[in-house]
């Protein structure tokens, strides 16, 4: 009996020693990575993480895909509870808020240089959004933009050059009239043209969020900055002449020029473009694979035309890899997280990532020979002109007000003047709330 116990105890001891040795010998740092790439880019992201795990035997990254909205809701509670993941992907519109509310850890200059994360590699406009007052918190991993998809067959039928889509307001309006046909074959402006009975149209102007994004781009082309600098408490300026002109132009596409159907939604326009009813579609680069998979749709991609009156600008967005604050900082995990962030954002990985529909985050990828075959090279030159609404912690409130103002004007609920003035008042009140609720920064 006594011997038996001793033998069992000895066995147990051996097993414990074995386990400990085993863990030491194959010691792997485990890190958690949350991201919101749940669309067609999910398999690409999972492939990249698997490749990282294969090439880095000492680190095991466990990715978790969570829809963006839910992901953003979980970040601060997880930090407060001390159970935050090691690496998270966040978008340009929320990153500054997370930084200012103290949810994200700064990446120190030493860490940046020891992990070869160089600011110079990235597009400057993208890189800056991941920083506050020169301190770096996020590294760009993903870049998107509003583009124009156009149906080459319909362009040809209308006598337009399918390789030369319109790029300014005048050319756009001329093409739009040629591309809009009612069921009797009449064009807008023709005697008896019936706007309520369109067989084919140029492009739909949908209601939020996509409509707001299009209007945002045109307003930016009119020189609207949306908010003033931090020193002026982010004074809202989108109800300026330029903002109103932009919204009026888009409303006129429906009512005045009659090249857009009334009551378009983002989905109805996507469907109409796929069915060959809408000759053009303004949407994000992420629609590419859906349109490529549409049988018999011969389409091209071009930058959104300059529908405004000033310099070229277009809506853009980006995602960043960040490290949430950890209650008990484990230096090993932090090292591993930085290794992962650095690897994921290198040109080689970014090039692979563009397969999922993203645009390059850095010129080296845009100029890479392998990228030249990508359908999105057509919009590459517009990349430095993306006007990204970011850099302050109330982008969501500002966009919600802008979108609502645009919707009210488009649906005829209010005049353009009234709609944008009301929206600006709303945005100002929300920004004031937001400024008050920010914790003091040291």
């Amino acid at each position, binding site marked *: 009996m006594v011997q038996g116990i001793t033998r069992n105890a000895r066995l147990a001891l051996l097993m414990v020693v074995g386990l400990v040795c085993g863990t030491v010998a194959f010691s792997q740092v485990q890190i958690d990575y949350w991201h919101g790439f749940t669309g067609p880019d999910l398999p690409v992201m999972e492939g990249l993480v698997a490749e990282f795990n294969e090439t880095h035997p000492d680190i095991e990254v466990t990715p978790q895909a969570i829809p963006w909205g839910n992901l*953003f809701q979980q970040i601060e509670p997880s930090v407060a509870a001390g159970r935050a993941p090691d690496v998270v992907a966040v978008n340009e519109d929320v990153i500054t808020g997370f930084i200012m509310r103290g949810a994200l850890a700064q990446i120190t200059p030493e860490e940046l240089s020891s992990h070869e994360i160089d600011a110079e590699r990235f597009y400057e406009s993208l890189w800056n959004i991941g920083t506050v007052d020169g301190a770096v918190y996020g590294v760009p991993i993903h870049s998107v933009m509003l583009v124009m998809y156009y149906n080459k067959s319909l362009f040809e039928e209308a006598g337009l050059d399918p390789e030369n889509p319109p790029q300014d307001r005048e050319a756009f309006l001329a093409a739009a009239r040629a591309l809009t046909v009612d069921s009797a074959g009449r064009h807008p402006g023709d005697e008896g043209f019936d706007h309520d009975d369109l067989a084919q149209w140029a492009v739909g102007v949908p209601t939020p969020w996509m409509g707001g994004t299009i209007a945002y781009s045109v307003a930016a082309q009119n020189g609207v900055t949306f908010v003033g600098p931090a020193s002026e408490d982010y004074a809202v300026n989108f109800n300026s002449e330029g903002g109103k002109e932009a919204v009026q132009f888009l409303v006129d596409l429906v009512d005045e020029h009659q090249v857009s159907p009334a009551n378009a939604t983002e989905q109805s326009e996507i469907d109409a473009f796929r069915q060959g009813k809408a000759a053009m579609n303004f949407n994000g680069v992420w629609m590419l694979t859906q349109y490529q998979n549409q049988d018999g749709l011969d389409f091209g991609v071009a930058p959104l035309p300059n529908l405004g009156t000033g310099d070229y600008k277009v809506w853009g967005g980006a995602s960043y890899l960040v490290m949430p604050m950890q209650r008990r900082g484990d230096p090993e995990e932090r090292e591993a997280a930085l290794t992962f962030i650095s690897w994921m954002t290198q040109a080689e990985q970014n090039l692979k990532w563009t397969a999922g529909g993203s645009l390059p985050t850095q010129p080296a990828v845009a100029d890479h020979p392998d990228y030249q075959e990508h359908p999105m090279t057509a919009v590459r030159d517009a990349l430095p002109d993306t006007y990204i609404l970011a850099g302050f912690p109330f982008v969501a409130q500002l966009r919600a007000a802008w979108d609502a103002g645009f919707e009210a004007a488009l649906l005829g609920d209010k005049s353009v003047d009234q709609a944008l003035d009301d929206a600006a008042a709303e945005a100002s009140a929300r920004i004031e709330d937001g400024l008050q609720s920010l914790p003091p920064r040291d």
Partner: protein
Amino acid sequence: MTLSHPKRPALLRLDDRNPLVPYLYLLPHAVLFLIFIVFPIGFGIFVSLHRWNLLSDQQVFVGLDHYRSLFTPGSPEARFFWKTLLNTILFVVITVPLLIACAIGLALLLHKPIWGRGFFRTVFFLPTILAVSIMGLLWKWMFENGSGLINVILDQLPLLDTVPFLTTVGWAWVPIIVGTLWWTVGFNMVLYSAALAAVPQAYYDAAQLDGAGRWAQFRHVTWPMLTPVTIFTAVTSTIASFQLFGQSHVITAGGPLRSTQSVMMYITEEAFTNFQFSSAAAMSMVFGLALLLISVFQFRLLLRDTGRGAD
């Protein structure tokens, strides 16, 4: 009586005469109740009185500021909170009677021993098990402005015109209400089917002898006999309808012009999109109080009805 343990005081007795016994029976529930109901409400009140930041050590006390702005005309909080609350009430007022009427109707139709009764009961109950996101996508597709099935059919029919459901104030409720009805009516129908089966046939026989027609039979036999179930479905449907979130979120995203945004959606937006937790907590408190008042009123109304039914 105290022979076995002469020194043990009353509070330490190990039998049922210990005065603590009733409280010990209540303890398990009380612990859960305190942790999951009382504490969150208290914490919610605390949050609503501060300018609360999840990650900050110091929370600035602002008193009733967040409540005050809910009652300040012109502030965005007041505008959207009351607008979305009215939206929600409109939804409740329309859906609850529909959910009860349709459930009774279906239960009555399927009460008769018709062919395929079990099959139809299953079919009507089936949507209940779907997730709201699936149900929402389905009805969004059906009512989509250009390419939705309903509009394709309307377009084909002579004399009828297509309706831009998703972008027209008013019409935008149709996909949400029809979808909700389709989604949840099966549950109430099952409750009514069970209740109908329990109505003794003798009542109908007696009513028939008295010369009652079908409507009189329903009015004076079926309806009173179903009252307990009606109270239950009315209360549960009302509470569920006040919690409207997923249907609006998926089908219309609250639009157009926030006309189908529910108050729960707005509170979520305030908390997790605008990161104004305190303001959202204050709204939750006001909404909770409103819901409490409505529930009390509804209970009284319906209990009075049962009291009358028992006379």
